[in-house]
């Protein structure tokens, strides 16, 4: 997927900054590997019984004997996710962010901020997630809450396999990371975009006067965008079905297959929905490729949280709404004059939120049981509770857990990223000087333009023609 992001970003920006954006993409894969290996993995999955942060296995230190390779494979898989979260931001701040700021932020993200989110949602010790198994099993509900079905008391729950310490009973379900990966990355992107400000000439003209209609800065290669989209879509089949983590029980293979189907359907409906909406909204019947590619990505992000716990029909609905949401949020950003070079915020931030919430609405109790081994007739999405499809669903408890998760992720990321970016900005380390921005970062930082289409010289053509001039020579005229 790194290749996908690199191509998508490269295709979406102006041709004067291609080298720069691609270098950033390569570097965050590298920085992510080192940051996550040295610190991040330990913070996220260290074995202590601390629900907020782990503190062991730095530098993979405790897997020396390799009696089980699963640890290492797990690290490898998690690294790929961390790098994805980091790379989301690259597109948004493209064409104007300094390299050093990029280093600092991507290390901070993979080494600390992202791991804390992962621990909360995905680690067995985490306080937020559905995997929590070894937290304190105290009964923290009041009797009246129990009667209302908002939570389940300890003794009753343990017999039935419930884990009362999970948040509101079900815990937050984020199967492959709409929240953990995309919302974290998307929130970082929005903070960065606000502090960094728009590109020169995007919303204001040379004299600082607001432009009535913002200046479009068109993508330099739609082909690279589409290539990037297809590679990302392909990579998502590792992202979503792969998140079953162990492909060896009958239900996990079922879950993986379902995840693959839902991923496909949601991407397709997201793409068509946003494409159709953009077409309907435009005066001239514009058939916009970017709406189609970003719509597909929106559908993918939106289904990421719920791919294992919703039925295919719900995937179509989720994707479609994701596509609409993308168009709406993209227009909103322009209204607010927040400049997002590749529309990463509508795709990852808005649909990250939607993905988390959609689980709270559409999750089926049957599938939650299969994917998370909850007891039969347990928690389900709000629509299922509403239709009384299960007899002990927790009155919106899953939806509530999802909302808490969304708020936590946004809050945590904003709280840490804002001071970081603000400090960078104060010290002048965040944004490149005006001259460099206007000339393009490829010339100012990377020794020349990324594309060199110089033709052979006239003399060379003439010499060649002399040599091979024959009656039927297929040489085109110079």
């Amino acid at each position, binding site marked *: 997927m790194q290749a996908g992001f690199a191509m998508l970003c490269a295709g979406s920006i102006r041709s004067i900054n291609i080298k720069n954006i691609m270098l950033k993409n390569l570097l965050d894969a590298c920085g992510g590997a080192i940051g996550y290996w040295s610190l991040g993995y330990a913070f996220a999955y260290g074995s202590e019984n601390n629900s907020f942060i782990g503190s062991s296995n730095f530098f993979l230190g405790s897997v020396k004997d390799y009696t089980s390779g699963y640890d290492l494979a797990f690290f490898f898989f998690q690294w790929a996710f961390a790098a994805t979260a980091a790379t989301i931001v690259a597109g948004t701040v493209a064409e104007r962010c300094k390299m050093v700021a990029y280093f600092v932020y991507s290390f901070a993200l993979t080494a600390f901020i992202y791991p804390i989110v992962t621990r909360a949602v995905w680690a067995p010790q985490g306080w937020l997630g559905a995997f929590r198994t070894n937290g304190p099993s105290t009964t923290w509900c009041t009797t009246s809450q129990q009667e209302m079905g908002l939570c389940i008391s300890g003794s009753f729950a343990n017999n039935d396999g419930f884990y009362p310490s999970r948040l509101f009973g079900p815990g937050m379900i984020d199967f492959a990371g709409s929240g953990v990966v995309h919302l974290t990355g998307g929130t970082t992107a929005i903070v960065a975009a606000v502090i960094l400000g728009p590109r020169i000439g995007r919303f204001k003209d040379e004299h600082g006067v607001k432009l009535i209609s913002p200046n479009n800065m068109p993508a330099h290669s739609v082909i690279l965008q*589409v290539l990037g989209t297809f590679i990302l879509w392909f990579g998502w089949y590792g992202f979503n079905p792969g998140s079953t983590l162990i492909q060896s029980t009958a239900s996990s293979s079922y879950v993986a297959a379902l995840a693959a189907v839902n991923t496909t359907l949601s991407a397709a409906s997201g793409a068509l929905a946003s494409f159709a909406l953009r077409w309907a909204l435009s005066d001239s019947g514009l058939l916009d490729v970017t709406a189609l590619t970003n719509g597909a990505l929106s559908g993918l992000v939106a289904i990421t949280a719920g791919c294992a716990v919703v039925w295919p029909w719900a995937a179509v609905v989720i994707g479609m709404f994701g596509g609409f949401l993308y168009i709406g949020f993209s227009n909103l950003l322009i209204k607010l004059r927040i400049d997002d070079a590749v529309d990463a915020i509508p795709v990852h931030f808005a649909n990250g939120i939607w993905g988390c919430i959609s689980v709270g609405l559409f999750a089926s109790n049957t599938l939650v049981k299969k994917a998370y081994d909850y007891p039969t007739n347990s928690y389900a999405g709000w629509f299922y509770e509403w239709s009384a499809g299960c007899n002990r669903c927790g009155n919106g408890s899953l939806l509530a857990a999802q909302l808490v998760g969304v708020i936590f992720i946004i809050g945590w990321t904003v709280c840490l990223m804002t001071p970081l970016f603000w400090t960078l900005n104060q010290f002048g380390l965040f944004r490149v000087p005006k001259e460099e921005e206007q000339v393009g970062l490829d010339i100012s930082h990377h020794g020349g333009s990324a594309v060199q289409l110089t033709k052979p010289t006239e003399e060379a053509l003439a010499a060649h023609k002399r040599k091979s001039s024959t009656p039927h020579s297929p040489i085109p005229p110079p």
Partner: protein
Amino acid sequence: MSTCSVADQGNADAAINCLIAQQVKDHASLDTFYHIFAAALVFFMQAGFAMLCAGSVRAKNAKNIMLKNLLDACGAALGFYALGWGFAYGGADADVKTFIGDADFFLHQNADGHHAFFFQFAFAATAATIVAGTIAERCSMIAYLCYSTILTAFTYPIVAHAIWSKSGFLSAFNNDPIFGCGVVDFAGSGVVHLTGGMSALLAALVLGPRMGRFYDDNGEILNPPKEMPGHSTALQMLGTFILWTGWYGFNPGSTLGISYDGAAEVASLSAVTTTIAAASGCVTAMATRYFASDPLARQYDLTAAMNGALGGLVGITAGCSVVQPWAAVPIGAIAGLVYLGASNLLIMLRIDDTVDAVPVHMANGIWGLLAVGLFCDPNLKSNAYGSKHGGLFYGEGDLFGAQCLCILFICGWVTAIMGPFFVMLRKLGWFRVSTEDELVGLDISKHGGSAYELAQSKEGNKQAYNDFIKTAGDNTI
């Protein structure tokens, strides 16, 4: 994960039965994994087709073709989910023969077969996308949407049902297969490529050539026809390699599992024959084109090499699991020649195929089916299909007959459905973009601008550059 133990189960027999049950589950898991892996690779072929098409069209239509490629993946997903899967595989039963499936629409009853749906969807999307290249640069978007929905939701599923469903009347999986052997189309030379290629041919016939390709402005025949080379060979090459890689999901993946007896051998053999046929096709097509070119200015033709490799891949798709590795060499080599011949034939007939999809997919789809009837090794067929039938070269004719029947059926069925449909589109005036749009290029007329924005304002940029040079001395970081 296993919880079987003598202590838990009480006695040894019970533990053994528990282990056996676990093993069955393990097989299901492994097969599902294999399906997902193969389907993801096949899906990746969409990226390959997109790059190949993008590189093969002129720069002014690049956005348009990319849009079509992405749209048909989306359309195929929804169409195949809603109807196609049900028509193709719904209610399959090896004891009866039906023309069309009639159950499991919207994946309604499909509690355990999501992986199979996912794999088949990737195939349906491939069939749909083949046409995009042929009619590039002149087909309207609305016609494209209509056609790709019809193809994935109805035309293709009927073909898949006939040949791959247990209830299909040509199927080798039926209990009473046709001619006693049924049709051998392992990974879909016929089902996928011939169906897609035949549709492409019909579309090209009805749609007519691009302006200026065979006729000049006054309608006079151009001799020779005007070449309209693609705008980026790098993208074509990337597409070719992605397709080749994806084919390792397409062919070996068509064992539909890896755990049952013999599946692993069949899958390995498929991978090897696939490789060899592609290589032979590439070398043959390039060498033939080289020696056929003007002796004074011999040209190594990249397009021939790439399409030769793809032709070889299409040609081996039907037989990859039932022919010996040596047979992959002639199959691939002839596929390369078939591609060249068909490509020249199309030009002679003045049928305009922008990316040569008809020679690659249709002509070689036919050749692939025939090749099985010639080269099929009875022992290998027994491994892959459970019953022995050989090709003509092994002295048996039944299979060859079944393959010919299959070709006739696919061509006939696709023509019967898609032919009138395309003619109708044309009568309605929906099929082709306006002359002005075509000349200026679809990117500008339909998509708000060119696919590339390489030309910066020269003046502005020069000014910015000079400013930059002036201040560059003070720069750090």
